[in-house]
């Protein structure tokens, strides 16, 4: 019974480690998606070509100005996304669409992320 319990505990500890890794991976994915969402805004046109757009509304800022402004083209230079590792010192490098930390409401909903920021 003792050995059985020990084995059970070891298995649970291993499972815990796997879940911790899964959690870290998800946090990273959320961070990267936010960077992608707020910086590289690329849509496909009717002809199939890709163009960078600046839409005036999103889930963070709201959609109030959506019908007022129109998308416009960006020529030359591809917006570079931030480093995919959770490098909090080098956020979005696209100066046209600067990402404020406060925009990252999804990452900021995790106290672990806030601790890392601090």
């Amino acid at each position, binding site marked *: 019974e003792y050995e059985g319990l020990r084995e059970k505990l070891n298995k649970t500890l291993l499972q815990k480690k796997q879940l911790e890794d899964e959690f870290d991976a998800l946090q990273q994915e959320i961070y990267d998606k936010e960077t992608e969402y707020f910086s590289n805004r690329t849509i496909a046109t009717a002809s199939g070509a890709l163009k960078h757009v600046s839409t005036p509304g999103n889930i963070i800022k709201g959609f109030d100005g959506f019908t007022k402004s129109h998308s416009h083209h960006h020529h030359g230079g591809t917006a570079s996304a931030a480093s995919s590792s959770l490098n909090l010192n080098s956020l979005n490098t696209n100066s046209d669409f600067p990402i404020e930390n406060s925009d990252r409401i*999804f990452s900021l909903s995790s106290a672990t992320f806030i601790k890392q920021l601090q």
Partner: protein
Amino acid sequence: MDPSLALEQTLQDISNLEAEFHHAYEEIGANDGDIQEHQKKYMQKDSQIQKFIKQNGAIAEHPNESELNRDMQSELKEMLSLQKEKCKLANTALFMVAKHLSKLERNLTILEEDGVLAP
């Protein structure tokens, strides 16, 4: 239905989505902060027991062991309750945006079928 009407309708439907999202994720963050506090207390009590075992071996019982175990169980229960609340909030936010997206997609399909919008 015409495209501009569909757009207006969609914008009206999602006019509150920004506020709802901000609220949901702020609540999740606040709950997570509370969980961290409970986690700290849990770890403090756990380390008392672990320290005692290191000093006195695995057989000896910490003088306050049952009380510490009770407290730790209570902290765990609290953390689980808060975490379930966070899951509810996260699922609600997901449901809200999925609902609006689904409606928009249905409208787009209708417009395409009517030929007023290019596929």
